[in-house]
């Protein structure tokens, strides 16, 4: 079946140059995906404003010059610069100018200057069952899985094109039948102590992504109910190692009141019983540094830290002075809260560098340190930091990260 457009959609193709270009992109993507119709969307989250090179800046400026504006609420994911001035980015002058032009262009298109990869913790929480067009893999996983809104994994360019046209290709996870789990992931064989630990969810997410790939799975046997920050860590890690757009957790996420409901009352195509050995392997894969004797920097906040996560950080530092830099990445939504309470001053006095609007893995903020060791509690940072920063990675809990930042040595086994 060929794609059918309604009158309004066809009018957009003949409209202003910017809107017409956006519509052509949506239509081409719809054809590529085999969609027969487009679906109206309630909101968008735009990952496209991160500078990867001049081409993205020129694309956004072409839309602005063509008079395009977003037609739905559209939040922005991180950019390549910290516009709040909390941290300094080592982009060269030319790239810095192009990155700023890009951020300016997306604002001119009518996007909100949220600059966060955790928009769902910055008031952007679409209602259950609504169709939206979100980019940024962790945000997509959270939006589908935890909020129960419906989005595919919208890449750069298609996200803003959908926001301008207010339409998305009706396919994939917009359709109820594609949201059912086909893989059952059973955690009941794991020790309760592990499941309650703070490394459990990033490690399990990383394992889950590798196990299920782009399938939809339902996780069962979880024991302790994960909180929102744990679900955020799980989804981000899962979407780093696999093309995970939607996961279910029985009794936790809204489309999985029960395992059977998540499976659509059909037998699973595959059942995976997760063993302690699989978890040990997944955890060891998160580190690339081999028996490091020092830690050069610590980075947390992928996805961006919530105000609650800052409170835990503050409690673990407990007034001590850090001996290596600890980069805490966040968005303006949390920055406001920690500024108001005085926590930001206290953390910065201890040696924490707060990074807002961006993060240390997408833009050069970390000191250049060939052979350097970066410690993190984020499955997503652990996955991307070696390629993007050149640092070797050591994965640990937040408590271990803080102790390592205090001593400058890997403090694996520090109590939380």
């Amino acid at each position, binding site marked *: 079946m060929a794609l059918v457009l309604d009158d309004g959609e066809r009018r957009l193709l003949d409209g202003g140059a910017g809107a017409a270009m956006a519509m052509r992109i949506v239509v081409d993507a719809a054809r590529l995906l085999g969609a027969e119709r487009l679906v109206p969307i309630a909101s968008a989250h735009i990952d496209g404003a991160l500078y*990867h090179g001049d081409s*993205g800046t020129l*694309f956004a400026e072409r839309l602005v010059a063509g008079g395009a504006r977003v037609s739905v609420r559209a939040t922005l994911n991180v950019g390549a610069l910290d516009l709040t001035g909390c941290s300094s980015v080592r982009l060269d002058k030319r790239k810095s100018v192009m990155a700023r032009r890009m951020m300016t262009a997306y604002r001119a298109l009518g996007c909100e200057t949220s600059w966060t990869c955790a928009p769902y913790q910055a008031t952007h929480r679409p209602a259950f069952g609504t169709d939206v067009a979100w980019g940024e893999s962790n945000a997509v996983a959270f939006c589908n899985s935890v909020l129960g809104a419906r989005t*595919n994994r*919208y*890449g750069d360019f298609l*996200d803003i094109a959908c926001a301008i046209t207010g339409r998305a290709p009706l396919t994939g996870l917009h359709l109820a039948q594609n949201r059912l789990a086909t893989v059952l992931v059973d955690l009941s064989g794991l020790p309760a102590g592990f499941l309650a630990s703070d490394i459990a969810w990033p490690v399990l997410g990383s394992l889950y992504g590798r196990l299920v*790939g782009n399938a939809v799975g339902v996780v069962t046997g979880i024991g302790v109910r994960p909180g929102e920050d744990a679900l955020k860590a799980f989804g981000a890690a899962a979407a780093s190692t696999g093309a995970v757009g939607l996961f279910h957790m029985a009794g936790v996420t809204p489309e999985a009141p029960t395992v059977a409901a998540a499976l659509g009352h059909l037998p699973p195509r595959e059942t995976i019983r997760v063993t302690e050995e699989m978890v040990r392997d997944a955890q060891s894969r998160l580190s690339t540094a081999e028996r490091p004797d020092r830690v050069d920097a610590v980075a947390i906040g992928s996805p961006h830290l919530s105000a609650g996560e800052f409170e835990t950080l503050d409690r673990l530092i407990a007034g001590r002075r850090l001996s290596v830099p600890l980069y805490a990445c966040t968005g303006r939504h949390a920055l406001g809260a920690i500024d108001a309470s005085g926590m930001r001053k206290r953390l910065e006095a201890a040696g924490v560098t707060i990074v807002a609007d961006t993060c240390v893995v997408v833009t050069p903020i970390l000191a250049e340190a060939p052979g350097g060791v970066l410690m993190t509690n984020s499955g997503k940072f652990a996955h*991307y930091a070696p390629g993007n920063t050149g640092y070797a990675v050591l994965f640990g809990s937040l408590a271990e990260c803080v102790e390592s930042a205090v001593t400058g040595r890997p403090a694996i086994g520090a109590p939380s």
Partner: protein
Amino acid sequence: MTGRRCDILVPGEPGGGTALVLDAPISFWGGVDPENGVIADVRHPQHGCCIAGSVLFLSGTIGSSSASSVLLELVRNGKAPAALVLHEPDAILLLGLIVAREMGWPPPIAIRLNREHFSDYCNARVNVSRDGVVELTR
């Protein structure tokens, strides 16, 4: 072996080069350097290989929704593969080619081929024509 006609995923410039059949799925963002096309992911089995000018065979892609940006940047920098051969359409990645065309930067062609045939081309000189025929060349 005669040429094999494949479905065209995104029309584009025909191209030839050495077939680079990736042994594992790749995330373009964080996995490929947009300035030179070198595979930067240290965990990828072909870390250090360069995709620029190759006929790139992808059995799967993973990860970030910024893959399209990296591919667009590779096209603009002249460091894109000469052609892309995908086991299944990946809208996130291929959008980079669609946007390249919108911007007036001629993109390479992308075609669809079942990955069971990928081993026929491994490291050989391969050409992909404008009408989607992939064949070995001398």
